[in-house]
């Protein structure tokens, strides 16, 4: 029985360290190769020894597919390919291929240079690893080998994120990676055609959430930023006449600044675009800065991969590339002290270290300033503390920092919510669904919903647990044109809805199947035709002579089988089509006649019908 087997090495009932093994029709594919944010020991990488304890992984895996450049989806790649050892192809989209090494390098720097870890992969390893990458285009079908093919679909989420269809023959699996069903300011929505895979492996980060319209979020965000930046120019409720105008200028409040700590690549771009277009629209002058480094490097690639962005950016990039920001400039340490309103994007996102924390300390004292947290903060970080309302923070060196600035929280997440997941399942129409990348409790709810609404079975394996799905692959069979035409001539046009019966011979020869007419099959195989006849004796109680019985049988059959050719042959036998019926006297009982019915294998249906008919006896002659 053919089957599809799926084993998550990471992201099974968990978020982070995405790594899923799929074996489909004898091919083994690894989907994503991520690291876990929460661990810094061995658990941060998937346990590749599950695949093989010794030897290189290349012998066991046909290919590796990376869905997008976030570290929890590609972080373990250099370790996997260079340190454990894998030489096969690694597939990813072009933007992922471009941006992935930047993130890996950054990750390596933090781990090695800052935390001082040994036995970590090196820059050279990242480079070597990236050499194994094969780039794929959207909707391009890539033949990994003769049988295995993969195809990428747009997934939203971040630039270059893709969903992958893995197909062997008629069996297929779709892996979504992370995706977003609502478009945002720089990316479109995920889309897939009705590919009806055997299995859909989908993320389920927001399995139990239905999100509010993104417009409210955006509006709120822009309003907050705008208000803070503009507060100095608040207009009085009077026309700005001479005296009033002067006083309002004299009372200009001190510099007003907005700090936006960002972490995830992609979110930063989204917020930048949002602010940039708003600045453009409203003709605002206050400067916007973003911290140099990662975002800046990545932004370079965002400029290049315009086809991967949303409709608006694609349509307008001829006039102006939206990622060539007019109002957003690179940040310099000295700017933090300069007067006047400004907006600053700084890393890291949880305010636990680095530039964002430095700026935060400078600005926290002014109640007119504001910090906007665009994402989730881990417990213990400064970000989490201020979000939970703490106003006095103890900094290193027993220093107490009083936070007077406004603290705002706004969630800009680019994962599909429960409704989005359901929408994607509806679009792809899979036979089975498998949930990964989410919390077990939340998955439970979604699993139940999917089973209820779509009536397909749904799985949610934990890490290391294997799900086995039996499949019934359809096997294509070639049919000879002659046979098809002959069969068509017999009946009406083929109707797509009704199956039709067809007589022919199936020839299986070097793993291809052909359906040919039996004559041709015999000819091809060089075999002589054998006739197979069934014979059957029917005892009839009839006292008359054999000839008379034969005549009676003849007249009876003639009356019953109106549309068959019934003949009475001169030798006393009766034929119905090719079926021969002979009457003979019973050797022992003269009152009983024996009818010998003989038919070929091809006429089985009619023959057995005749015997049953004759067994009922002949009608009494009048």
């Amino acid at each position, binding site marked *: 029985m053919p089957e599809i087997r799926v084993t998550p090495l990471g992201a099974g009932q968990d978020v982070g360290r995405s790594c899923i093994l799929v074996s489909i029709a004898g091919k083994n594919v690894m989907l994503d190769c991520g690291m876990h944010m929460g661990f810094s020991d061995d658990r941060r990488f998937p346990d590749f020894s599950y695949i093989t304890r010794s030897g290189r992984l290349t012998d066991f895996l046909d290919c590796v597919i990376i869905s997008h450049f976030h570290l929890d989806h590609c972080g373990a790649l250099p370790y996997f390919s260079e340190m454990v050892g894998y030489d096969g192809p690694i597939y990813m989209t072009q933007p992922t291929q471009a941006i992935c090494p930047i993130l890996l390098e950054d990750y390596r720097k933090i781990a090695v240079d800052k935390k001082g870890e040994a036995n970590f992969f090196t820059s050279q390893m990242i480079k070597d690893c990236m050499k194994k990458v094969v780039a794929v285009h959207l909707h391009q079908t890539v033949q990994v080998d003769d049988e295995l093919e993969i195809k990428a679909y747009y997934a939203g989420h971040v630039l270059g994120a893709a969903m992958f269809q893995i197909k062997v023959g008629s069996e297929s699996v779709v892996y979504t990676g992370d995706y977003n069903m609502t478009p945002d300011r720089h990316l479109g929505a995920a889309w897939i055609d009705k590919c009806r895979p055997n299995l859909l492996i989908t993320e389920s980060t927001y399995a139990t959430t239905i*999100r509010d319209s993104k417009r409210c979020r955006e509006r709120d965000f822009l309003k907050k930023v705008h208000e803070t930046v503009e507060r100095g120019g608040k207009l009085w409720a*009077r*026309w700005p006449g001479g005296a009033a105008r002067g006083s309002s200028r004299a009372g200009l409040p001190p510099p007003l600044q907005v700090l936006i700590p960002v972490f995830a690549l992609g979110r930063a771009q989204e917020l930048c675009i949002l602010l940039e277009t708003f600045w453009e629209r409203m003709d605002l002058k206050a400067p916007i800065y973003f911290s140099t480094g990662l975002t800046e490097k990545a932004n370079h690639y965002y400029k290049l991969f315009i086809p991967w962005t949303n409709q608006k950016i694609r349509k307008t990039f001829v006039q102006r590339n939206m990622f060539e920001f007019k109002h957003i400039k690179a940040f310099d340490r000295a700017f933090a002290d300069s007067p006047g309103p400004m907006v600053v994007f700084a890393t890291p996102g949880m305010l636990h270290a680095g530039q964002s924390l430095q700026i935060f300390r400078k600005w926290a004292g002014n109640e007119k300033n504001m910090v906007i947290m665009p994402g989730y903060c881990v417990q213990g970080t400064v970000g989490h503390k201020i979000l939970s309302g703490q106003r006095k923070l103890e900094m290193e060196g027993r220093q107490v920092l009083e936070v007077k600035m406004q603290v705002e929280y706004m969630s800009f997440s680019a994962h599909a919510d*429960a409704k989005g997941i359901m929408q994607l399942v509806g679009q792809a129409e899979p036979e089975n669904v498998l949930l990964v990348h989410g919390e077990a409790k939340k998955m439970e709810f979604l699993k139940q919903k999917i089973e209820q609404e779509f009536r397909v079975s749904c799985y949610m394996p934990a890490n290391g647990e294997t799900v086995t799905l039996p499949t019934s692959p359809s096997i294509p069979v070639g049919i000879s044109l002659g046979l098809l035409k002959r069969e068509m001539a017999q009946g009406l046009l083929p109707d797509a809805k009704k199956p039709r019966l067809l007589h022919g011979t199936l020839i299986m020869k070097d793993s291809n199947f052909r359906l040919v007419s039996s004559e041709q099959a015999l000819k091809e195989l060089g075999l002589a035709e054998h006739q197979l006849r069934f014979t059957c004796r029917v005892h009839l109680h009839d006292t008359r002579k054999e000839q008379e019985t034969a005549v009676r049988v003849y007249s009876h059959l003639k009356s019953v089988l109106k549309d068959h050719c019934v003949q009475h042959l001169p030798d006393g036998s009766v034929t119905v089509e090719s079926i021969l019926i002979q009457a003979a006297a019973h050797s022992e009982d003269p009152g009983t006649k024996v009818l010998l019915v003989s038919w070929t294998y091809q006429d089985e249906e009619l023959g057995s019908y005749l015997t049953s008919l004759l067994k009922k006896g002949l009608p009494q002659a009048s």
Partner: protein
Amino acid sequence: MAAHLKKRVYEEFTKVVQQQQEEIATKKLRLTKPSKSAALHIDLCKATSPADALQYLLQFARKPVEAESVEGVVRILLEHYYKENDPSVRLKIASLLGLLSKTAGFSPDCIMDDAINILQNEKSHQVLAQLLDTLLAIGTKLPDNQAIQMRLVDVACKHLTDTSHGVRNKCLQLLGNLGSLEKSVTKDAEGLAVRDVQKIIGDYFSDQDPRVRTAAIKAMLQLHERGLKLYQTIYTQACKLLSDDYEQVRSAAVQLIWVVSQLYPESIVPIPSSNEEIRLVDDAFGKICHMVSDSSWVVRVQASKLLGSMEQVSSHFLEQTLDKKLMSDLRRKRTAHERAKELYTSGEFSSGRKWGDDAPKEEVDTGAVNLIESGACGAFVHGLEDEMYEVRIAAVEALCMLAQSSPSFAEKCLDFLVDMFNDEIEEVRLQSIHTMRKISNNITLREDQLDTVLAVLEDSSRDIREALHELLCCTNVSTKEGIHLALVELLKNLTKYPTDKDSIWKCLKFLGSRHPTLVLPLVPELLSTHPFFDTAEPDMDDPAYIAVLVLIFNAAKTCPTMPALFSDHTFRHYAYLRDSLSHLVPALRLPGRKLVSSALSPNIMPHEDPSHQFLQQSLERVYSLQHLDPQGTQELLEFTIRDLQRLGELQSELAGVADFSATYLRCQLLLIKALQEKLWNVAAPLYLKQSDLASAAAKQIMEETYKMEFMYSGVENKQVVIIHHMRLQAKALQLIVTARTARGVDPLFGMCEKFLQEVDFFQRCFIADLPHLQDSFVDKLLDLMPRLMTSKPAEVVKILHTMLRQSTFLHLPLPEQIHKASATIIEPAGESDNPLRFTSGLVVALDVDATLEHVQDPQSTVKVQVSYPDGQAQMIHPKPADFRNPGPGRHRLITQVYLSHTAWTEPCQVEVRLLLAYNSSSRIPKSPWIEGGEMSSQVETSIEGTIPFSKSVKVYIMPKPARR
């Protein structure tokens, strides 16, 4: 002699046997009188290969065929069709047959038999499809012939089983277009069984080819369009198609469902997998809502659009479309909109947001959560945040239409519309602002909503701001704080974008007059009056101060207590503004002041009828007067013209008619004057100098006729005939005058020929109207046409002269609605003393902002003219996108004009004005034959002449010499 005889013999032959034509010199024949059919025949016979034949056919298709010769051409084509072996040639012939049968004035029933005949023997699927298309053309040409229709339907049914999708498509199309509407069979069609067209088409909803499925649905829709009532059973069939694999099928199915839901809104359908039943329209609404989240954007656009027109849907279904039932971690969560509303009602607006402010509240029952509901849940929420702006616009439009029909829905959708003001695409923002304006009667803005609306005032796009001003004109604000906020934001807008002055003032005018009671408590603060102290008098020229005053004065109109709060200088300012900006400042009943001139306005209305009568009478008087002595006629004309002009000034609604008639009379007057000149009798050489008057008159008449034809909207064909007739007379006059003054005959030849061509052209264009022009100049002219053709120029001139003098005065029928096109340039205002300085040789952009009234098709007709002091003039064609259409009959042109010149020693003024370009040949109806041909497009773009229709504005510029 023999040669001569031989020639005659051939001449005889050419008339009867076409085969013979080949033998003689075809070239010559074609030059003299080209016969379409003959030429085609020859070409086709000459063709040696299918490719050749195809070429000939293509060439043939470029030129139109007259109705008389169509039949002959068809016969020849058919003949070739039978002989032809190449399917591509047969295909072209079949398509030509279809084209030919569309020719006006040709009845295609004669070729139908042949077409059906060849259809039966055709093997190629493509040709079959094309032939069916031809039959469709024939069938649609003969909508009344029941028998033919039945026969065609029969043919279509026969070919429905074809294996090619193209043929099945065409068959279905044929059925959709011709399927019988009534069951009653007329006598001549009795032989054929009546078929149930709907049933037949319905069977093909499950065809294996998606294109055929689409065609089947389209055919069904076509039946509906033709007035056949679709069965309700189709609904279930169509619902199945909603989950089709192909987007075009789904898109068409959505339409079909919509149609059925409009036909049977009240019937009851069961909900699958439950015992409940709902109204069909609700069910359909739910299904279409579901399609708003389809995977194909084409379907999404279609679905969003159709949602708007489903007005019968029950309100709770409607309101579901805006509700997404948020949850977070399985707990119910309120939307940001709900929270904003709550904050507002609790009286605590503008609180800072706290972490966890949106923390989810109660637990949600897991079983009750329906993630993919059948209902309409959140359809608009999805539609409004769609990736494609086409879908978003469609959703906004749908919201607008639904909100207009349901006030409660309008209230609910407000939050969503307000959110759309922040869309990334300007078009969507603009559309949602317009939508909001349309539904503003049903809604009152909450303060927080107003806040969001007003934030958009800072948008750098002028269209957005102006749309918003218009929206504010007609919104209802609930509190005095709201008014205050609006004013503050508008003033902010004014300081940021001073060019919005007029629009903001207008907006405040309406804001004031709509909310007098809300403005009242704000007055002291707004005027910064103090109970004890006199405050400084504000600057009268400050646009912001004027804005505040406009608000207050308009509020004061319906609020008599308000003027008591004014200080002295306010009254003075009132008097000044009432004079200078009378359209913005209403007449107020102020204590101690008389109301001047307000009595006039209400009395105008009753006068309307008599004035119209007066117009009619004075015109009739003129028309009846043609036999009086010339002196009297002239005087009467002069008086009438004067009357009409005055009438036009007094009565704005009659201005168009009055001006139009006056112009016509003026033309007539000029013509009479020119013809009355005594000097006509003087011998030509002496005549020279005095001819000025006549030729000037001719020129002026020409100009006036162009104005009449192109500057008025609502001019109908019958007026155009008269105008052209007048122009023809002017041309005749011109010819006569030139004939008298010109030396030599040569130039006259050309002119005469040209004139005769014009007459011919006139006759061709207005052949239908000629009976109305009895006894007129052209009527007589056409009578004498044969003679004129052969006469010498001098003779022609003589005839023309007498005819002009004898010609009668044609009655100009008045059109129903006529408006004169006009334009006002708002910007540049022409007041600036500071010259625009720029380096010579480079360009400077000049912003031009103008309003156009009653201009048809401004995109192609309105041009900007810039004249430099050295007499050089440039015509600039504004881009089509520079025109906005703020209301019916009104247009707004906002464009940039580039100026450039060589260096000047001192600043000088250039004149900017708007021109109306015209092209008289564009009125001629085009034949369907050459649609899309290269010829026609050229004709349309060319400009024959221009009419200035705005006052010119002077702009001070100074090109400086370039520094080296």
